[in-house]
């Protein structure tokens, strides 16, 4: 009976389905897969890393593209130096040393000898020159660079229009591409670069599929003794959950996704091999108040609001204990060697102090009415919104905790959480009350304080800006910032940053909340040599400039 049913049209349908399945797998199979990238039993194992933000991979290894495939800037291409925020060191990489001119208007790098690209061509200063020029042309930036000279193959001289000491890190961490290939492209920005040629440790793309790809060893790497991995294997996932599940099942070696309660969900399943380390060297997370609004232009109000926030609750409950409460310098632990302990000791407005907050608000004219609600001096009830993007569940908890804390001083705050695109659009045009916001995390605190107190990026409400959303500026801070970039004397720089911290503590341009953690977890089942709290030679990020330090330090376990 069933066989009769399967006769005729239905048999045809079933046959088509089977044939279609076979044809489709053949269709997928005809993808240029490259060489046999299998995990041979005798060769070294592949370092397996999940990537949760992409869903599928596209074969795009153009380092000038904002959406290049993972590991493009970390394993395929390298830069002249690597700044490690975990311990504040600067590691010479493709350059062996550098020197700044006396007036701070020039910077010279000496390149390492015997560095070759993966196709055998030696690295020269011309490659550095072209890379910086391409970056400037395609993605903007480097406006302060006046000229680039290449007196010989291993020296690059940059001259600047005005002194700018952070240029060391900006130029130093620029990825270097081979000039003999990139100068030939008519539209370098539109190149997919499917077979990249770089100086990095693992450059040979193999077995590129939508769900995974492999990177094999660079045959001409300048640190051949540090290429102990068989290669790198990237896996694509569509969201945190898939990536975390793979980590928990032990199918990946190194993950950088946020995992709630990581001790029980991940580490306890194999405590001998699994570890995590979340150093709070990420960007500082602030609660910004729109200072173009009358209420928030008063420093007493800002400090009072800051005193109402219970940062212990915020970090323990909102951030699962992974973050560290902020102090009056507003600096994250990335800048520990710049932190001025004098400012920290005199700190009074970043600890929870409900009585102090009430007193300050009364002083500023924001008295409580008969129902216990604060009113502005104009007599209106003091209420406002706290904006945060809905997809960041941890920051959403933080905003809710702040709203609860504010009730203790009689202020009613509402958490407004559309998607991040709308929130950011509101920040950019200055059309918001308050909001949770990220900050710059460059190697020096210059950009950080510039975006908090400098007038450079302040735009009026309605005009789009990409920095200093809260639109606060201070002349004294401007002076200090200008002095910072023009001096390369470390002692002077430290003094200037101390003054900046003191000024920050005086003005409280934003309410600092906590130093953000850099996520990272790993297993020593297959590979050892990971950075740890005791040995912070890099962070555990697999998409940061320090990633190449980890790639060249790992070796197979056993």
């Amino acid at each position, binding site marked *: 009976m069933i066989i*009769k*049913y399967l006769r005729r049209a239905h048999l045809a*349908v*079933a046959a088509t*389905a089977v044939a279609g*399945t*076979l044809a*489709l*797998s053949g*269709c*997928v*199979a005809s*993808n240029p*897969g490259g060489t*046999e*990238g*299998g*995990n041979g039993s005798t060769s070294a194992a592949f370092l*397996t890393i999940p990537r949760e933000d992409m*869903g*599928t991979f*596209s074969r*795009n290894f153009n380092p000038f593209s*904002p*959406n290049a495939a993972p590991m493009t800037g970390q394993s395929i291409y390298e830069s002249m130096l690597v700044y490690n925020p975990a311990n504040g060191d600067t590691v010479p990489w493709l350059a062996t040393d550098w020197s700044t001119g006396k007036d701070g208007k020039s910077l010279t790098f000496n390149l390492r000898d015997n560095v070759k690209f993966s196709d055998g061509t030696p690295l020269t200063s011309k490659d550095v020159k072209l890379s910086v020029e391409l970056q400037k*042309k395609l*993605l*903007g*930036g480097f*406006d302060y660079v006046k000229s680039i000279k290449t007196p010989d193959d291993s020296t690059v001289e940059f001259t600047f229009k005005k002194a700018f000491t952070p240029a060391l890190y900006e130029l130093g961490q620029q990825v270097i591409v081979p000039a003999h290939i990139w100068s030939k492209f008519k539209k370098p*920005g*539109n*190149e*997919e670069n499917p077979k990249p040629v770089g100086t990095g440790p693992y450059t040979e793309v193999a*077995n590129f*599929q*939508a*769900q*995974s790809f492999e990177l094999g060893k660079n045959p001409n790497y300048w640190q051949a003794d540090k290429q102990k991995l068989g290669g790198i*294997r990237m*896996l694509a*996932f*569509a*969201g945190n*959950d*898939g990536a975390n*599940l*793979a980590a928990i*099942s032990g*199918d990946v070696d190194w993950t950088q996704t946020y995992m709630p309660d990581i001790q029980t969900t991940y580490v306890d399943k194999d405590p001998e091999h699994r570890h995590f380390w979340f150093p709070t060297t990420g960007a500082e997370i602030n609660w910004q108040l729109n200072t173009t609004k009358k209420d928030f232009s008063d420093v007493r109000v800002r400090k009072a609001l800051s005193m109402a926030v219970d940062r212990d609750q915020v970090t323990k409950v909102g951030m699962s204990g992974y973050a560290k409460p902020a102090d009056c310098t507003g600096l994250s632990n990335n800048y520990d060697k710049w932190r001025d302990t004098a400012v920290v000791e005199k700190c009074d407005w970043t600890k929870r102090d409900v009585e102090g907050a009430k007193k300050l608000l009364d002083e500023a004219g924001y008295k409580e009415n008969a129902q216990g609600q604060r009113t502005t001096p104009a007599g209106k009830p003091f209420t406002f919104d706290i904006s945060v993007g809905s997809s960041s569940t941890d920051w959403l908890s933080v905003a809710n905790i702040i709203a609860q804390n504010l009730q203790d001083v009689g202020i009613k705050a509402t958490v407004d959480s559309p998607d*991040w*695109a709308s*929130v950011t*659009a509101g920040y950019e045009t200055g059309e918001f009350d308050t909001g949770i916001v*990220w900050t710059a995390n460059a190697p020096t605190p210059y*950009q950080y304080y510039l975006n908090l107190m400098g007038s450079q*990026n302040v735009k009026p409400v309605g005009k*789009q*800006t*990409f920095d200093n959303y809260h639109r606060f500026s201070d002349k004294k801070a401007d002076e200090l910032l200008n002095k910072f970039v023009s001096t390369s004397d470390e002692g002077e720089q430290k003094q200037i940053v101390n003054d900046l911290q003191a000024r920050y503590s005086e003005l409280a341009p934003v309410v600092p909340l906590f130093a953000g953690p850099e996520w990272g977890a790993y297993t020593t089942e297959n590979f050892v040599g990971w950075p740890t709290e005791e040995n912070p030679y890099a962070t555990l990020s697999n998409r940061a400039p320090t990633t190449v330090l980890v790639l060249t330090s790992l070796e197979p376990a056993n």
Partner: protein
Amino acid sequence: MSFLLRRLGFYLLAFWASITLNFLLPRLMPGDPVTRMLSRSQQRLEPQQVEALRTLMGVDGGPIIPEYFAYLGRILTGDFGMSISRFPTPVSEVIASQLPWTLLLGLTSLIIAVILGNLLGILAAWRRGGFLDSIAPPLLVFIGSFPYFWLAMGALYIFGINMGVAPMRHAFSVGLVPGFNLVFILDVAAHLILPALTIVLVSLGGWMLGMRNTMIATNSEDYILMAEAKGLRPHRIMLNYAARNAMLPSVTSMGMSIGFIVGGALLTEVVFAYPGVGYQLLGAVQGLDYPLMQGMFLTITAAVLIANFLVDLVYVRLDPRVRKG
């Protein structure tokens, strides 16, 4: 013949209307792609860098009418431009690299669900009030009413994690090089088990109910009674006469479903990390990636229209009453 030509003309008109809407709708959304990209990655760029990115990706804005005609021209040559969220990969490459997996998953699940669902519906209707008829429809509809991602995660947990009988993620084992050989095909089939199972479970109820209801109506027709009176065997009547006539609405639904397969199965891709266009489309909409959105919507529209056209042709073959003259 004239029937076919008229149908073809209608489909061309529908196609033109949909590609025009395809062009207009994304541009009605507020915001622009570059700032969306930046806000999602919380990247910090100078204003002039944002401008440079805009120029690089070609979203500096311009008059809309010439852009529309350029878009129409490019469609005819099959050039969809470069994706913004995957810059500079061309849109056709983005879609082509992921579409085969979506089609594989979608077609496999659909065919299994259709065959199984219709079979169950036929059997249930033939023995109305019997055991199958009382249990299966409510049970399958109940299962199908669960939120899909809950069902998918449940299946992943039970079969993948606890029992370990099926692979838990991706389309094939990592490290395997795709090739037209038995090992790879079996591996792909194994990885299809959980995703396809969950999709089939969710959609089975619908197919079964539809077929059962049409069958019940068909069973009351006079020719069935005539066939029984003539002494034909019950199974022959059930399949060759009743089911064959009751099949027609199922065929129409199947055609529509085939078209929508190319939209991707977003939740399946998220839960099972299965490569496909669904997650891509979500990302494109969230990131205001006009070229990729246009390319995807166009693909979906074309697929639905072609599937409908094919169903029309098949219908003519199946149901003589539709033919004219």
